[in-house]
């Protein structure tokens, strides 16, 4: 019998798995997509917020501040990049009062180091920003991460501590039978004492399946645009405008990988699968970003994507043990990524109210990151190549990704081209995979022992080719 089933393999589900792996529990995570992070999380902006933009009275405000703190230790243990960029909320003429209010809120949340800086400071430290900006609120604790990288790191650690993770396992029914939950997927059937619902956009659907009311999820679409690395990091810090009522606005985000990202938009949509980008929103993002940094222009755009935020009308996170061991984690939109480790901690505390949670005696606190050939020096590279000559065969020349890394990504669970992309950065460079896609497919075909026509971009239905032979 399973102790806890986690439904959903995004940042919340992965954080839960990572946290619960510390205890003497039999934990299983179910994900409907072919790989973890393929739902809401893969399109996240990757910002670890200070937390000062969320009300000090709200659950999300408190959990974001705590999550920001927890990430520092977790990134060290799990060996993923956590870049402490800091953030700025900038004030154009007439907006100083707004950033003073945010500062006051941040002070109440106990966020360290926040201060208001003036135009002179901005000129010196962020010269690319518009000269019309008069003041900015500086939050030094903000950072950037790659959301999928954190999820894979947490999942790998959890697996090494005995957690079972099953992808391509979409839940279709949940029933309480005596004192356990029966969870059925299209592939299998599970029984568990507890169910933790971390299903993102489908969290309301999952809750209703169990016969439990919860806030309705309203998808809010965000479109983002990535600038070429030739443009370098435009700003050192994440730059926010003064927030509007429901959104933090369109930002400039220096990414972990050295690109600059601009966006996201925020629009309510009806379709939970609507991840289209539009010309209208591209123009909107460009205009808003140019207001912050005038040198941004359309020619610098190299990629775009869209994602959906699982928003609720109520606004705050909804985290609650409903009845008989069903725990809902619903409406985890921004700052959900930041808060995720704190959400996991919070849920463990809920569990601890009704059951004893002894820690594992043998627990592996660590995880080693994938080798990143591009980031190594010559000596390190040669050591790697000596051990395995596949590290001497460059497959993705734009990002200098080797065959050794592609194979390692597959060993760590990559089953799709997107999964390999997220783990290795192959296909993310200037040629967008034009030079390496066939080569990666050949490696996948060999390593996974599947024919070419079974290789997908992101799971069943997204096969790359139509026929194996001409």
């Amino acid at each position: 019998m399973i102790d806890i089933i986690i439904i959903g393999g995004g940042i919340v589900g992965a954080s839960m798995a990572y946290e619960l792996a510390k205890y003497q529990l039999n934990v299983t995570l179910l994900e409907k997509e072919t790989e973890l992070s393929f739902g809401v999380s893969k399109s996240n902006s990757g910002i670890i917020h200070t937390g000062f933009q969320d009300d000090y009275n709200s659950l999300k405000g408190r959990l974001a501040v705590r999550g920001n703190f927890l990430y520092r230790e977790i990134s060290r243990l799990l060996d993923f990049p956590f870049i402490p960029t800091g953030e700025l909320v900038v004030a154009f003429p007439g907006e100083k009062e707004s950033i003073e209010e945010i500062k006051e809120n941040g002070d109440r949340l106990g966020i360290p180091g926040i201060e208001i800086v003036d135009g002179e400071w901005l000129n010196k430290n962020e010269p690319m920003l518009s000269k019309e900006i008069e003041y900015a609120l500086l939050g030094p604790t903000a950072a950037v991460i790659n959301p999928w990288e954190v999820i894979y790191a947490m999942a790998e650690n959890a697996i090494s501590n005995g957690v079972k993770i099953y992808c391509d396992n979409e839940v279709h029914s949940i029933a309480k039978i005596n004192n356990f939950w029966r969870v059925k997927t299209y592939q299998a059937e599970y029984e568990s004492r507890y169910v933790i619902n971390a299903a993102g956009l489908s969290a309301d659907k999952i809750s209703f399946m169990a016969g439990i009311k919860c806030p309705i999820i309203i998808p809010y679409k965000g479109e983002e645009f990535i600038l070429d690395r030739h443009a370098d990091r435009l700003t050192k810090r994440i730059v926010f405008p003064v927030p509007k009522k429901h959104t933090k606005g369109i930002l400039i985000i220096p990414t972990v990988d050295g690109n600059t990202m601009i966006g996201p938009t925020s629009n309510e949509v009806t379709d939970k699968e609507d991840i289209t980008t539009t010309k209208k929103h591209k123009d909107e993002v460009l205009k808003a970003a140019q207001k912050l940094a005038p040198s941004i222009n359309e020619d610098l755009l190299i990629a775009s994507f869209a994602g959906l935020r699982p928003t609720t009308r109520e606004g705050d996170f909804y985290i609650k043990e409903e009845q008989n061991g069903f725990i809902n984690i619903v409406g985890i939109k921004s700052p959900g990524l930041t808060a995720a480790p704190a959400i996991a901690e919070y849920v463990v505390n809920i569990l601890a109210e009704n059951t004893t949670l002894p820690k594992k005696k043998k627990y592996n606190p660590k995880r080693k990151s994938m080798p990143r050939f591009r980031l190594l020096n010559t000596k390190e590279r040669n050591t790697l190549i000596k051990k395995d000559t596949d590290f001497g065969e460059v497959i993705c020349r734009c990002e200098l990704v080797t065959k050794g890394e592609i194979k390692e990504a597959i060993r760590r669970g990559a089953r799709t081209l997107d999964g390999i992309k997220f783990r290795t950065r192959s296909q993310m460079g200037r040629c967008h995979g034009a030079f390496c896609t066939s080569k990666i497919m050949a490696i996948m075909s060999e390593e996974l022992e599947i024919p070419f026509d079974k290789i997908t971009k992101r799971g069943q239905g997204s096969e790359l080719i139509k026929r194996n032979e001409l």
Partner: protein
Amino acid sequence: MNYKKYDLIVIGGGPAGMAAAAGASSSGVKDILILERMPGLGGILNQCIHLGFGLEYFKKEMTGTEYAARYKKIVYDKDIEVKTSCLVHKITPEKNVSFVSRDGEFTVSAKNIIMATGCRERTREMLTVPGTRPSGIFTAGLAQEMVNIYGLMPGHEVVIVGSGDIGLIMARRMTLEGAKVHFVLEILDHLSGLIRNKVQCLDDFKIPLYLEHELMEITGKNRVEAIRYRDNKTGREKVISCDTVLFSVGLIPEQDLLIDSGITTGNGIFLTGNADYVHDLVDNVTKEAEKLGRSIN
């Protein structure tokens, strides 16, 4: 590989690199090294199984593969060192060249460097075409590699965006392999590729070319399901269902090695072939690169 200073290092063993090395060798340059990232010489010619090569240079019409084979012989008949399956990732103003291979990472230096790194295709992402990002979207060159090198069939119902030569060639290639190529969209009021390619690849198979037509949106969740396109003359929009979109919307010289290394040409560092600017004909690439090679001393 022992550390050695070369008179000339040619980066890239495609038609430009081979010709530059051959030209230099025939004018007496001694220690020449070609560094090629693929397992063999020939570059992109190896996936060009169609005719249209060599008429100017070899005075004979041949396929890209035949042209490559013929020129490889010229290189191997000369005293030129060729190292394949190695990727150059850095060059310095002092003309040190670093590359990665299965034997390790090495740095060699040269009196002269010729960059013959070819070009890459512009992609859907660079055009920021609105819509979804399903599978079934390829550059024409990637589709060409899949069909001609790997023997894979990328799709059945095809729309080609852009009238560049590779797109036209792939319109015919996909048709011969049984695909239905609906049409080629071109945003400009004229063909981008060679007229002879339009005649042989589109007209012969009655594939329409729509000039002044723009791709507006790609739809489909997991796989391409349809595209929306607009006639810019009338402003009318239409939707057609398809499972594959091939992009042939221009080529970009691959000079990123220089840009990323923070150096420019001059002082013994040269660009040639499509890495310099994009050529219509390989024959001209060969001639120019040979000439450059001969001028090296």
